[in-house]
Every structure is written in structure tokens, then in C-alpha cells.
């Protein structure tokens, strides 16, 4: 067996079924080894598509996503996808081919120090200099990628190591280490804070889904009766239609959710990290609250907001050990609910044109429970977060930390391959879709039944909105009136498509989108002037929300 064959065998040993990648010179031995393996390789049309698809696969399945690329430009094309996984703590193993070790450091053809380039955006990385290290490195890479707070791990594989003969064998995966739990003293300090609280709020973060703690979180929320607000990535930790769910907090959150946090006397942070998009101006965030911070990652505690009590370790186990507050939260809950009802969005916008928030809401009302939404980045991403019904966080794939335009389609591809029976809908914009438009070829190649909803406002809407609001309306390089004809683009890739221009066409369009067999794209024209409301201006406190004029 050679090194490449050993790598492939070790991937199989790790239970990998699907790998996303793109071949080239330095990684050819691995592609050759794929012939004789049970791995399913998905050929994307750009390595960024491979990495983002591996990310989407991981988010939708909870399993580690795997991508691979050749040396030089192959590796650099992976970088955005690796950084995306890092920013959202997604388990991923990325394998890059490298020039042969004697050539490394000589500026040889397609040599790039991908190990160095990716250092700030990986959880860990390996440069495989010895074929005998392959079993240990693959085992370690999968362990590191998925344990504690997950993240991407890079393995750089020089070509001479890939072709070297070896009699090593893959290592068997050992038993999972027992999850770490906070000590009893910390739990009782937290319980004490809960006992003395009058206006507690559960601040749900992306860590809940990552830790597989959705059920434990729901049980805790329901038995304690504490109002829940969520970050973008935690939407669905409690179903967004649940009576205790007050809303998303932060820049494009609801006034009710932001007010709940501003008025809270105790903030119970569950797997969140006080990101600036959620907190607004940090020194004005939850000014009256003591903080209990639960996280798997010790480095998050008191990074941005000092925690009164830190509960470090596995979220499910922590939530199971935390006693529900023995306090009467009903009056406080009632106040939060009242505010939520007062700021419910309206869907009766004037005009005949398609109103995107209403269409998105109707889409999730029409779709079944098995819907997975994969979003791109921009206004449409925020409208999905604000208006779609989301029942579980792993059914809402969104690039939260990095905000990567071009995430939507590859993420949908990964999600669909990981969940062949679910209905996967990609919500994208006319700017974002062009960032990875080549992945239409991947959808067609594997006939993935992905439904693409393209909300076309003929501009980079989110940037246009900021220019209008914060740069005196001086629009700079945001108009996209020269977009291609998206219906013909999709059709030329072999994907049926249709256009939606008026509001009265929306119900039929949703029906057609959801019920067409195989892939389909709906090109929906929306108002180029529409904005996302409400909004906390950058650098301002969450108590200063701007509403539609």
C-alpha cells in the first residue's frame, strides 16, 4: 500500500462516506486511490465550492466534513471555506496535496505554504513528512476536528509521501472521552444567581447545535419557563414559533429580544460568544445583568464580557445538572411576550411587487417539516432569519461568523448529499449566487433535487442599504443592473428555471419550486429599494434600534 491508499483507507476507517474535492498534480496519488475505495467523491467546480460543501454537509449531519484539493491554487482556493468553518466552529478535515518534500522551500511549480497560510483559521494542522505518521495524523485530525469546540483541521500531504510504500494500517477510532462537566461548586453558584433573579433571559448560541444539546436546551427552557432569545446560528434551538421564544437578538434582531436583554437582571449565555453582531456596542449590552456563561471552550469565558459564573464543559450535561429557577418568571415572561406581539412584523406591504419577507414566510409555511434552508449572505439572509419558521438549528445553514457570500449553493449541495430524503432549499441573492455560480454544474452532475430561490434586487442590497443609511446615500459599486439572465444561466447548466415578477404569482411559484422533481431555480424580482428592518447602527447599543421610516 502507498501513502495515498493508506489515507483513503484511514478515511474509510473514520466512517467517512462523502468527500468533496477537485484533483490536480500533487494530489493525483489520492485520486488514484479513490478508484478502489468505497468513498463517494463529489467533484465541485471550484475548490471553494468543495470546502463550503463539506461545511454544509457537516452542519446538516453533525459529522465531520471532508474536502481535498491539490497544491498551490487548489489549496488557496480552499482557504475561504476553511475560514468559514473556523468562524462557525464546524468540524472539517481538509487535505491538500503538496509538492514533494525535496522541492518544498524551493519555489517549485504550484508550491504554496498552505500550512502557513491557513494557520490563523484552523483549529490545528499537520504537515505529513513521513508516511508512517499517516494513521496517527488522520486519527488525530478527526478527533481534534470534532471534540470540544469543533473546527477545521488541515493535513498537507507532499507527493513523495503519498507515493511512498508502507505497511502501516489505519488506527481504529478509540472510545470517545467522557464529556467534561462543570464542577458542582460552579453549578451551585449558578443556581444561586438563578434563585435571586427576577428577569432572567436565556441567550442561546450556535454552540447548542454544535454540542447536540438541542433537546437538553429545550427541556431546560421549558421547565424553567425563562424567556429565550437566540443568535443567528441558534435559531431553532427553540422552534421560532414556540411561545417562549422572544426573537433573534442583535443588529437585525427584534426590538422585543433586544429589550429583553437590555432589561434582564440575569443573562444565561448557552454556547454563545458575545459576538458584536449580537451585542451591539458591548459596554451597553445587558447593562443590568449578571452573567452565567456555559461553553465548551474555556477561552470564550470573559473574553468580551466578564462572566459572574462560568460553566465549562458539555452543554447537555451542564443543562441537565442546572436546577430550573425556583422563581416566578410569569410576570417577566408576560412582559416579554407583550413586547413581542407589539413588534410583530407586518406582511401587507403596499404595491404589486413581490415582498420578499412575505414570500419567505409563506415558503416555510408551505414546506414540510423536513425543510433544510441554506442561505447566502446579505439582506435575504437576514430576511430568512427574521421571517422563516425554523424548527431546528441544523435546518438553517447560514454563514454567521465569516458572512461568506457564495456559501448558499455549496452548503445546499453538502446538506442534500448528507440528507438525501430532506427538502433542501437554497435562498440566495443576485450578488451571492455569482460567487459560486459554477456549482450549478455540480447540482446538475449529481442531479441533486435542490430548490434555489434567487431573490434578485439588481444590487448588492445589504451594502446599498448601508450606503444609503450611513454614507449619505452615496452609492458606490453596488448596482448590478447588468446581471445575466438567471433563468437562461440555470437552463444552460441543465437546471429548469422560471421567473416570478408579481406578488399574485407567489403562491403558484412556491408550489412549483417545492414540487418540481429534481433541481429547479426560481428567479424572483424584488424591490431594489427594500431594506432590512429593524437595525442597530454599527457601533451603537442594542437599545437604539432604527425602524422603517
Amino acid at each position, binding site marked *: 500500500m502507498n501513502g495515498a491508499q493508506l489515507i483513503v483507507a484511514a478515511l474509510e476507517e473514520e466512517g467517512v462516506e462523502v468527500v468533496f474535492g477537485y484533483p490536480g498534480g500533487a494530489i493525483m496519488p489520492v485520486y488514484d486511490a479513490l478508484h478502489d475505495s468505497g468513498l463517494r467523491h463529489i467533484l465541485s467546480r471550484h475548490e471553494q465550492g468543495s470546502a463550503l460543501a463539506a461545511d454544509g454537509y457537516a452542519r446538516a449531519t453533525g459529522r465531520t466534513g471532508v474536502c481535498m484539493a491539490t497544491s498551490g491554487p487548489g489549496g488557496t482556493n480552499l482557504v475561504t471555506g476553511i475560514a468559514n468553518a473556523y468562524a462557525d466552529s464546524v468540524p472539517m478535515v481538509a487535505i491538500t496535496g503538496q509538492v514533494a518534500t525535496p522541492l518544498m522551500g524551493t519555489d517549485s511549480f504550484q508550491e504554496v505554504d498552505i*500550512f*502557513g497560510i491557513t*494557520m*490563523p483559521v484552523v483549529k*490545528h*494542522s*499537520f*504537515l505529513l*513528512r513521513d508516511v508512517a505518521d499517516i494513521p496517527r495524523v488522520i486519527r488525530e485530525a478527526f478527533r*481534534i476536528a470534532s*471534540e*470540544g*469546540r469543533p473546527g477545521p483541521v488541515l493535513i498537507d500531504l507532499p507527493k513523495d509521501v503519498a507515493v511512498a510504500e508502507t505497511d502501516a494500517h489505519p488506527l481504529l477510532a478509540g472510545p470517545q472521552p467522557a464529556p*467534561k462537566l462543570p464542577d458542582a461548586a460552579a453549578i451551585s453558584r449558578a443556581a444561586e444567581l438563578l434563585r435571586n433573579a427576577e428577569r432572567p433571559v436565556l441567550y442561546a448560541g450556535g454552540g447548542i447545535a454544535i454540542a447536540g444539546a438541542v433537546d437538553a436546551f429545550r427541556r431546560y427552557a421549558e421547565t424553567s419557563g425563562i424567556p429565550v432569545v437566540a443568535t443567528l446560528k441558534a435559531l431553532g434551538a427553540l422552534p421560532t414559533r414556540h411561545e417562549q421564544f422572544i426573537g433573534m437578538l442583535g443588529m437585525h434582531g427584534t426590538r422585543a429580544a433586544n429589550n429583553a436583554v437590555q432589561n434582564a437582571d440575569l443573562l444565561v449565555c448557552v454556547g454563545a460568544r458575545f459576538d458584536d453582531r449580537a451585542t451591539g456596542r458591548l459596554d451597553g449590552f445587558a447593562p443590568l445583568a449578571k452573567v452565567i456563561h456555559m461553553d*465548551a*471552550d*474555556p*477561552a470564550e*469565558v*470573559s*473574553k468580551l464580557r466578564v462572566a459572574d459564573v462560568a460553566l*465549562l*464543559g458539555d452543554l447537555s450535561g451542564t443543562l441537565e445538572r442546572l436546577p430550573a429557577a425556583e422563581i416566578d418568571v410569569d410576570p417577566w415572561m408576560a412582559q416579554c411576550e407583550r413586547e413581542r406581539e407589539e413588534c410583530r412584523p407586518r406582511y401587507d406591504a403596499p404595491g404589486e411587487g413581490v415582498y420578499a419577507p412575505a414570500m419567505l414566510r409563506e415558503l416555510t409555511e408551505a414546506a414540510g417539516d423536513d425543510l433544510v434552508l441554506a442561505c447566502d449572505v446579505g439582506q435575504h439572509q437576514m430576511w430568512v432569519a427574521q421571517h422563516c419558521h425554523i424548527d431546528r438549528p441544523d435546518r438553517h445553514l447560514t454563514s454567521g461568523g465569516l458572512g461568506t457570500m457564495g456559501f448558499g449553493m455549496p452548503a445546499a449541495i453538502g446538506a442534500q448529499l448528507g440528507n438525501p430524503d430532506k427538502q433542501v432549499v437554497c435562498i440566495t441573492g443576485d450578488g451571492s449566487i455569482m460567487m459560486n455560480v459554477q456549482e450549478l454544474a455540480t447540482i446538475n452532475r449529481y442531479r441533486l433535487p435542490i430548490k434555489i430561490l434567487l431573490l434578485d434586487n439588481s444590487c448588492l442590497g445589504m451594502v446599498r442599504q448601508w450606503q444609503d443609511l450611513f454614507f449619505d446615500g452615496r452609492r458606490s459599486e453596488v448596482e448590478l443592473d447588468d446581471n445575466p439572465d438567471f433563468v437562461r444561466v440555470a437552463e444552460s447548466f441543465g437546471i429548469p428555471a422560471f421567473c416570478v415578477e408579481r406578488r399574485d404569482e407567489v403562491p403558484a411559484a412556491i408550489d412549483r419550486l417545492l414540487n418540481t422533481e429534481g433541481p429547479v431555480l426560481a428567479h424572483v424580482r424584488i424591490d431594489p429599494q427594500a431594506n432590512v428592518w429593524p437595525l442597530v447602527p454599527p457601533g451603537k447599543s442594542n437599545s437604539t434600534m432604527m425602524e422603517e421610516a
Partner: protein
Amino acid sequence: MKHTLKLSVQPAEGAILRIIGLVERRGFNLVRIDADRSGADEQLYMELDVVSPSRSIDVLKRQLEKLYDVINVLLLNTNSDQFEIKESKAC
């Protein structure tokens, strides 16, 4: 305020770069670096003097502890000359 960190490190590919890169990226200035791998145990020992006007040294310590090549981080307590001993590998 200046702090001294003492690290013992598994001498793996890129370990020194990873440590230095993290310190600077997290908003600390390095004012002194000492690295030694000449001992019989072949382990890498590093001493870093770092300053930051605003960032918490405890958070930096925990961020360094998360690195897989880092075995141990001691923070030289500038007031009492006491060492804080890391209990277990961060998760």
C-alpha cells in the same frame, strides 16, 4: 502591563509560529521571546513577555492552552511571583 508567560511545547511543525502568531493576532505585543530546545528531553520551552493596553492576559493564556502543541502555560504573576498551574487540557 507586562506579563511573562512560560510555555512547554511539543516540538511539532509550525509550533513556534502558531504560538507567536496567536499572541500577536489576539492583540498583544511581544517584547521578548526566548525559545530553547537544546535540553535532553528535546522539549521546546518558551518564555514570552507580552504587553497589551486592554486585553486580558487570562484569556490569552486560555487561548494558548487550546493549541494542541502546547503542553503547559504558566503565567508569571507580576505581583506575587507565583505560578498559576494549568489543570487540564482545554477542550
